[in-house]
């Protein structure tokens, strides 16, 4: 299957995005901000459709909107990031606006499915290079902030006392998350970003309680799911996003069951 250019591009894009999503997603799950991530993806849809309306590539509209929304969410603080109703309303509103933009630009409507559900087999070489550049920025930024970010996530009050600005790292991390979401959306679409960003990271945290191993496992699972998804799509002609979400859900389910199955084989200690 690698004799086709589109398959090479698909694998290259999936590899870049899976590495970024696995790393950033790990912190997103650890911080309990997955729902905020979900909302950012929806906001990205508005950005992408709005960009098309003014004649800009959807990817840039998505990057601009998600990063702007991520930064504002970070400034508004944890109070908002954990307020499910407010986020839920914002995400419904942004999908509504996205629909409105599509309505104004009917010729583009066929691409709506690609934005919503992704189409990795349509990624061209140029997009791969853009994804690589964005991916390097995301991972480099995460590497620079990861130590204080982890401190602020584990023990916010103590981190604050030691001079770590909770708001600064909340803003920076949501900006990195937003960039990652815009990248993920190229593979699985805005509605299914959870499959790549949250599924592998959550499964990794079920399987190991060590941070280093968890990060590696999260990346490994994201890569495995994305590569297998594309391969299965190639041979079955079913959408790659379907396969990726199915694998993501399956692996997460397995990860929650596995520790329980292992535990029942050990003697039960009553402490």
């Amino acid at each position: 299957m690698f004799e086709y250019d589109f398959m090479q591009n698909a694998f290259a894009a999936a590899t870049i995005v899976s590495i970024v999503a696995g790393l950033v997603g790990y912190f997103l799950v650890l911080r309990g901000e997955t729902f905020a991530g979900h909302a950012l993806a929806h906001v990205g849809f508005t950005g992408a459709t709005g960009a098309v309306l003014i004649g800009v590539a959807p990817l840039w509209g998505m990057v601009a909107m998600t990063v702007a929304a991520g930064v504002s969410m970070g400034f508004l603080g944890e109070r908002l990031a954990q307020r499910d109703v407010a986020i839920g309303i914002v995400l419904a509103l942004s999908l509504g606006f996205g629909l409105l933009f599509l309505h104004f630009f009917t010729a583009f409507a066929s691409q709506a499915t690609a934005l919503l559900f992704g189409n990795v087999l349509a990624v061209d070489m140029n997009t791969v290079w853009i994804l690589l550049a964005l991916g390097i920025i995301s991972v480099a930024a995460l590497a620079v902030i990861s130590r204080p970010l982890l401190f602020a996530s584990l023990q916010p009050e103590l981190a604050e006392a030691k001079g770590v600005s909770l708001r600064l790292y909340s803003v920076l991390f949501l900006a990195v998350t937003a960039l990652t979401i815009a990248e993920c959306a190229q593979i699985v679409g805005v509605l299914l970003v959870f499959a790549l960003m949250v599924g592998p990271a959550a499964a990794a945290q079920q399987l190991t309680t060590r941070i280093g191993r968890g990060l590696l496992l999260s990346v490994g699972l994201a890569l495995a799911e994305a590569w297998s998804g594309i391969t299965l799509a190639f041979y079955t002609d079913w959408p790659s996003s379907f396969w990726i979400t199915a694998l993501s859900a399956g692996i997460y389910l397995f990860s929650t069951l596995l520790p329980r199955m292992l535990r029942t084989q050990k003697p039960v200690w009553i402490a």
Partner: protein
Amino acid sequence: MNAISFHDVTLRLDGHVVLDNVSLEIVQQEFIGVLGPNGAGKTTLMRAALGLVPAGGGKIDVLGRLATRGNPDIGYMPQVRRALGTMRLSGWDFVAGVVGGHRLGMPILGKTDRAEVDRALALVGASELAHRPLAEISGGEQQRLLLAQALIGRPQLLLLDEPLSNLDPHHQQAVVALVKSLQAELGITVLFSAHELNPLLGTIDRVLYLGHGQAALGTVDEVITGPVLSRIYGSEIDVVRLKNRIFVMSGGHDVERDEHRHDLLSEQTHIPGR
């Protein structure tokens, strides 16, 4: 040099006066019990020493320097408000995440940093339980991990905010004894807040009693008396001693035990501004 000095300090939160023009001096290597009903300002006082709440006109010195955020000589154990079990992490990683956490970069620990984590865990007797996931250890064991986090960086002053909350009396005694032995072994100053005095009796050197914006600092015999507490609570308080226990009573009720029942307290002792 004092561990902590407050000079005419007024602490406000959103305009609400928590401490009103308070001055006090805590000597190094003292073990201070910080007491007072819920909302008295125990947490706010500690956060002020950490530089997280401004001194409002007065001056706060900590170990000879003005209180500022990021003082590496202070170890802090925040009041537990949320369950730790939601994070899928081992206890070791939970404590290790604190080491050098204010510096940029990746959380990769070198040999000395790892030794620091092991030392802190050993000091609180948590070396074994640190291998287990946070979600699977008890409240008392989680308190030990929080204490280990506070000890990272070898602080001279420990601020422990309600380490006894949610613990049964047996575990409470174990935590008090552990902190006392750490204080003696490391030669550090400890501020230990609690809303009941009895678990701390016999261990603390002095008591800092907060209430109604006021503070009284002295030995248990000096502070836990009818006149001093009546001034702090703003109503008639009786202190009853039974064997080795002390009960602070208002109109027949034990206010330390009842203080979380706000309706009862506000009936017995009028609290202005609430």
